[in-house]
């Protein structure tokens, strides 16, 4: 019996030829990641181990991105812990405010994660890097401390679920709609402890930015990792960024999957996940009229160039509804700068949006757009749990940037078709370059 791509990457990092689901293995990690929420705990635990230096100062990345720029004194104290640690340990990859970005957009952009890598991060959305054909998964602070000390971690080999995407994408449909639809099918624990492998003939039409979004939300189905095999699209993204050699892995034809799902994307319209679970998904046409107070476009899920280009296309020469706050957060300084060059930021500001420096901010109810009692938001983020973006009676509706931008204009959850007819659009899809 052959192996899946996930099993092959795990086996190679465990120094063996073959692993099987359920087996507990010790693996070497290529990169270890933490942020301002999780690093302070990891550093505290690291200091208890009784060694002075991390295993490799070039393989540990720290990005203060959640409550930064420091939102209050307590957060400033937490951030100082990682800042001091980064300097003391002489970490090569510490990204300070002004040079940073949301970790899961920043690391691929910087070429720090490459195909075939094994990455662990103290952030649940570390699974994003599967889009590059890497194995990556989230852990807590203590596991991270252990990995910072040893360069290794124990993992249980996950069984794999295979998702085969077919058909031509309908207008406005991007990675967010594909993954929301998929989570809606299998549920928030539909892939608990498992690998989600995404493949199929439609893949060639799915942009790199959309692929990051798809793998990013694998955790919302409980998955250990999401993964997409390296192809021409990956190659176009990775080659200009890679500064070291990398390994390509492919699933064997006779690899074993616990379950196979075939999904025809031509049948899918833009999707919305209603409160309070990412699996509570409906097509946009199925929704009643839902007035909103706020729209957030950003996050590790949808703060990339493709998302901002789509938002700008819809917002151009339009105005944000008088009763709506539209907050747009480019995910990295690189995305921000490119958006400036393309005139997207000007479009946003002219439309009446607030544009911010990169931060996770409102996604987890940290800062930069907290919801009050009973307020409703459309967000391109990843979770809509009770109280996620603010008060426990507030509501978050998850969607892609097309629905988010259209809703900001109309003041209610809306299809982008209400603003621009897709039949008037150029035939070429908007994608990341």
């Amino acid at each position: 019996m052959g192996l899946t791509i996930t099993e092959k990457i795990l086996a190679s990092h465990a120094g063996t030829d073959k692993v099987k689901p359920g087996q507990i293995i010790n693996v070497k990690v290529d990169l270890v990641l933490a942020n301002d929420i999780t690093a302070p705990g990891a550093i505290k635990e690291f200091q208890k181990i009784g060694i002075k230096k991390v295993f490799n100062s070039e393989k540990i990345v720290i990005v203060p991105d959640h409550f930064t720029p420091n939102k209050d004194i307590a957060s400033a104290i937490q951030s100082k812990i990682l800042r001091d640690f980064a300097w003391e340990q002489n970490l090569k990859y510490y990204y300070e405010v002004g040079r940073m970005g949301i970790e899961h957009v920043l690391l691929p952009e910087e070429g720090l994660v490459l195909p075939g890598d094994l990455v662990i991060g103290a952030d649940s959305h570390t699974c994003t890097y599967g889009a590059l054909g890497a194995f990556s998964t989230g852990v807590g602070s203590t596991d991270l401390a252990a990995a910072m000390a040893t360069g290794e971690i124990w993992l249980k080999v996950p069984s794999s679920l295979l998702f085969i995407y077919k058909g031509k994408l309908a207008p406005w449909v991007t990675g967010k709609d594909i993954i929301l639809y998929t989570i809606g099918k299998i549920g928030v624990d539909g892939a608990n402890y498992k690998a989600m492998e995404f493949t199929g003939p439609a893949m060639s039409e799915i942009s790199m930015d959309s692929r990051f979004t798809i793998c990013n939300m694998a955790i919302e189905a409980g998955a250990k990792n999401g993964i997409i095999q390296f192809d021409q699209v990956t190659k176009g993204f990775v080659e200009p960024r890679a500064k070291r050699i990398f390994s390509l892995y492919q699933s064997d034809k006779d690899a074993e999957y616990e379950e196979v799902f075939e999904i025809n994307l031509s049948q899918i319209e833009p999707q919305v996940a209603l409160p309070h679970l990412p699996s509570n998904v409906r097509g946009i046409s199925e929704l009643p009229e839902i007035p909103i107070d706020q729209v957030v476009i950003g996050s590790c899920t949808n703060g990339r160039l493709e998302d901002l280009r789509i938002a700008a296309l819809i917002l151009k020469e339009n105005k944000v509804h008088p009763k709506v706050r539209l907050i747009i957060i480019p995910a990295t300084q690189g995305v921000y700068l490119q958006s400036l060059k393309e005139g997207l930021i000007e479009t946003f500001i002219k439309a009446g949006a607030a544009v911010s420096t990169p931060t996770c901010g409102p996604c987890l109810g940290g800062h930069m757009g907290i919801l009050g009692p009973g307020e409703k938001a459309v967000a391109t983020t990843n979770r809509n749990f009770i109280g996620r973006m603010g008060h426990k009676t507030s509501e978050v509706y998850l969607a892609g940037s097309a629905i988010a931008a259209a809703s900001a204009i109309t003041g209610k959850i809306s299809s982008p078709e209400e603003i621009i007819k897709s039949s008037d659009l150029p035939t070429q899809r908007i994608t990341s370059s």
Partner: protein
Amino acid sequence: MLVEGKAWKLGKNINTDVIISARYLNTFDLTELGKHCLEDLNEEFIKKVKPGDIIVAEENFGCGSSREHAALAIKGAGISCVIAKSFARIFFRNAINVGLPILESSEAVDYISNGDKIKIDLSNGKIINLTNKKSFQAQPFPDFIKEIINQGGLIKCLKNKFKAQEGEKCIE
């Protein structure tokens, strides 16, 4: 080790955001986190929870973020054990790592009601519902995880390992 307390029955998909809201993630202080445990889900919980009480939940307990604060907040609230039909994977690791006892048993969850008196032997995973006199056996942990628990957690495990290797280049 024996623990005993009242059951707090919760539903499925109890996520880390409701266990401890992100607005409290600017600290790792156990007591402080404990004061806000589950407050967005049930305001009464933190007012009425007693040391030793037990959380009993349906499937996928602890889904969502990787915040170790969630396991710490439950510990800080005085909870002695969480019994669930299943746990989300990052929460499972975090609970083991911070020393929060967790047990998997669908049967126990089905036969425990809110407020029942529960007694648990953590050394063998035996759960007794003192209210309805039923007893249950939780799923055993894999040997590998038992070893981490027996050594007092992952960090203590590593500390022992590094001590044993003293003189190697990782030690300065």
